[in-house]
């Protein structure tokens, strides 16, 4: 079954690539703006031999990873503190609901004013966008603690810290993992957006340069790279999730005794 699915997936992808080759060649679209697959592949081949491409990729990944790490760390710590300290959750709920829907890209002018085209500009946008993803999941996850598990921990004399570590954290972990996965995807989007719009060094800036210099196949090649990056990040996040949650019913499957 799995082999069949993989084969179908490969066939679908091959079909899509063939379509991308055929449509411009048949003149159905302007070849200058939609180059055929083979020309994009060519450009990609040239790109990966260029050291400047790797520098740009490194810059993007740096902004992504640093921003994500800050957002995840802050989201977890603040989420747990908000839930554990009495009344804090209620006191902050409306503020969170107000701040959360602000689109991160609306902060681009602010980022430019504050940090220009530095890495910090990218970080500001990435952290703002991905922080909420993690925070909201942590808040939900913490609320999911089973009262029986909590009472068990209390009856055996586990203190506040031990209960956070052994009961609250494992309960929230599946939610946290979902939050991190969503945040990882959002962080990549924002990193590339920031580079594209602000001109901070990275893949996004390179795409903008390719576009303004009419290097259309190169532009597409870079877009493909950005897509592959997103794919890798998602696959990576899912495998981390499976490993960390081997005990969880969503991963372990049905067990027969």
């Amino acid at each position, binding site marked *: 079954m799995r082999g069949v699915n993989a084969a179908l997936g490969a066939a679908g992808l091959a079909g899509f690539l063939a379509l991308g080759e055929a449509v411009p060649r048949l003149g159905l679209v302007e070849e200058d703006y939609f180059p055929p697959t083979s020309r994009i592949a060519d450009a990609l081949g040239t790109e990966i031999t260029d050291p400047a491409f790797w520098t740009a990729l490194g810059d993007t990944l740096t902004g992504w990873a640093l921003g994500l790490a800050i957002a995840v760390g802050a989201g977890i710590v603040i989420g747990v503190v908000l839930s554990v300290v009495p009344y804090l959750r209620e006191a902050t709920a409306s503020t969170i609901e107000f701040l959360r829907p602000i689109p991160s890209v609306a902060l681009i002018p602010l980022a430019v004013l504050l940090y220009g085209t530095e890495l910090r500009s990218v970080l500001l946008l990435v952290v703002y966008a991905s922080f909420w993803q993690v925070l909201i999941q942590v808040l939900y996850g913490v609320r999911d603690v089973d009262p*029986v598990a909590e009472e068990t921990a209390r*009856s*055996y*004399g586990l203190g506040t810290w031990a209960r956070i570590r052994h009961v609250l954290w494992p309960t929230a972990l599946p939610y946290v993992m979902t939050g991190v996965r969503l945040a990882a995807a959002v962080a990549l989007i924002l990193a590339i957006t920031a580079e594209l719009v602000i001109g901070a060094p990275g893949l996004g800036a390179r795409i903008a340069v390719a576009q303004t210099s009419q290097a259309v196949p190169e532009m597409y090649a870079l877009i493909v790279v950005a897509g592959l990056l997103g794919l890798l990040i998602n696959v990576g996040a899912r495998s981390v999730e499976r490993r960390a949650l081997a*005990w969880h019913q969503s991963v372990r499957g049905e067990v027969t*005794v």
Partner: protein
Amino acid sequence: MLDVRGLKKVYEGSGRRIEAVRDLTFTVGAGELVCLVGPSGCGKTTLLKCVGGLLAPTAGEVSLSGRKVDGPPPGMAFVFQEYGRSLFPWMRVGDNVELPLRQKDLSRARRRELVGDALASVGLADAAGAYPWQLSGGMQQRVAIARALAYEPEVLLMDEPFAAVDAQTRADLEDLVRRLWRERGITILFVTHDIDEAVYLGERVIVLSASPTVVREQLRVDLPAERDQVHTRVAPRFAELRTRVYEQIQAAKRGAATPAKADMPPSG
């Protein structure tokens, strides 16, 4: 050993006032196995949580070896009815049993020894590496019992621990509790709604009234210490005791229907 005096618990919230436990006084001697039995909904769980320091009583007090209970005391272990939720699915069986011990000041070797010994006593010596959800319900409750044993409590509180397992497993677990009690000399307070179980297990049975709860009767179970499922349950004395408890419970239910109405708490 365990003293409960004038215990009262009233839940208040959103304009409603529910008197779950009215006035309970009883003692459990050191090394005794006492069963609390009462009609369903009579506040047995509330009572046990007050005794275990998980709930603060509205009035009255609980003391363990002369010390007032105002939080879960270190010498007490709790076995819950919902074993599946009480064991942590993210920890292996061995770690589940060991976790409470990590709060005590014990060496690693001593903890290992206690865990191994406790699991061996419940017949699960080779299950330490499994996850709780890989075990059957009866085995999971054994793990919960092993966790309580490893904690080396003076008093073991059991809240309808076998209500969710099948009849055969239940009989095995009852014998297990009897055996552990005799081997280890722990004091056990066992809450159940099952009359047969109360008489079969206990050295003494405390019959509770319907809610708001008071002690209705205390009964000494003068069956031999050596009990088994086949012979004890058909012994004439067992039948007498069982009938006695049954009548008391029935009377408690009827009693709740009429006079309790007169002294219902004022609403609002």
